[in-house]
């Protein structure tokens, strides 16, 4: 288990590093799924797939089935992913336009999307596109993905600067989509959202972290439903 070395204040134990968050999120990805990974920690999931799991990666700009990126400074501008990086050409890829790309998304054909978040509410509301005080933000494909993917997983650090909670009772930031998040994987916890009952269920914690430790950094009320296990 890789853990972060940055100071955690009153943390009872180290938090996971970004790679470990990605690795845990990657564990739930099912072989053969069509998957869209957001930038940052979500994109890192591709490096930590369990053995035998192959995914069909989709990017909004019109590509399915890409894999490794070209080396920095190399790559073809006509073979880009939605993050502006340049994948390598691999067999089985498909290129298409934005109409088709968003028909795939909006039509509910993306099995899983892994995204980052600014805030997630107890009922699964997601805010990840604008910081209100900046006055301008970028939506891109985030609203389409969040509202329409079959499964929405958030992979992020548990708190913002100064331990400000990002997992909240109600989002104060403008929403990306209401009631869309299924699971949150953070540097201290894995939380399932039961959107029917509106409950946040703590399922896993980082080594050395208790339910109370996680709740202390979470504004939303967490519940226990089944055993809490250690993130592995």
């Amino acid at each position: 288990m890789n853990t972060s070395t940055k100071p955690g204040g009153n943390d009872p134990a180290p938090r996971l590093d970004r790679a470990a968050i990605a690795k845990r999120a990657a564990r739930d990805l099912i072989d053969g799924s069509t998957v869209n990974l957001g930038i940052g920690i979500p994109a890192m999931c591709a490096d930590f797939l369990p053995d035998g799991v192959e995914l069909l990666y989709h990017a909004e700009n019109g590509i399915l089935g890409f894999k490794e990126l070209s080396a920095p400074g190399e790559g073809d501008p006509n073979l880009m992913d939605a993050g502006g990086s340049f994948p390598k050409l691999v067999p089985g890829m498909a290129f298409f336009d934005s109409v088709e790309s968003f028909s795939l998304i909006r039509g509910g054909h993306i099995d899983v999307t892994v995204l980052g978040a600014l805030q997630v509410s107890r009922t699964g509301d997601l805010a990840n596109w604008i910081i209100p005080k900046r006055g301008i933000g970028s939506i891109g494909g985030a609203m389409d993905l969040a509202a329409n993917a079959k499964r929405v997983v958030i992979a992020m650090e548990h708190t913002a600067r100064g331990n400000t909670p990002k997992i909240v009772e109600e989002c104060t930031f403008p929403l990306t989509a209401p009631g869309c998040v299924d699971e949150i994987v953070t540097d201290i916890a894995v939380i399932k959202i039961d959107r029917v009952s509106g409950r946040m269920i703590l399922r896993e914690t980082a080594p050395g972290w208790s339910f109370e430790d996680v709740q202390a950094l979470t504004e939303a009320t967490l519940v226990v439903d089944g055993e809490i296990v250690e993130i592995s």
Partner: protein
Amino acid sequence: MTIVPINKISNSFADAVADIPSGASIMIGGFGGAGGQPTRLMMALRDLGVGDLTIIGNVAGISKTTGYGWPYHLDPVDQGMFFESGQAKKITCSFPVPGTTNPLSEIEKAFREGRAEVDIVPQGTLIERIRAAGAGVPAFYTPTGVGTPVAEGKEHRDFDGRTYLLETALSADYALIRAQKADTRGNLQYIGTSRAFNPAMATAATITIVEVDEIVEVGGIDPERVETLSTYVNRIVQREAGDPMP
């Protein structure tokens, strides 16, 4: 061999955009980044100097400050040029600012200084609105944006127990697009991920102008690979051989 003899080929990028008036609405194709961007047409429009433009793009104006979608060794060119030059008064797009504000992008500068209206639309809604304009659909319902700021003021309606927003078609006076290859009739072929917004924009503008790497005779594009029909294309300009700009 019979060939539809309409001549759509412009001799220069300047000629191709020469009739664009101040106040025009202009779609700019591609996704964001160098691939599929009609960079030479954009530069010609900047050089033309007309103002009060409304730009319609996707990822817009983030390459110059972040390098997004550009090879490392080149200075990126993006839609921010029309805000730096003061030619644009408004942009409709999905992604107008990068994560960082250091340095500020040209669009964010213009926004903060009150020089530009920025209309931010979810990407799937944006491309579907453009496609709708070309396809004779004046409006459609989408689940995207319900419960968010983009839903404000829009009609909400339930179908089968889920709530959707009514979104309307989005057309423009001109579309500047980029393709790999055109035949002399105006059939277009794209390459890789350079399709993006280009094919739909070609259908949604009164005048569609395409920047291509190569013009071939009729028959020089495989009929299975015609991705924009010649009916949609008004003007074609070929880039200079060996142009270092991607």
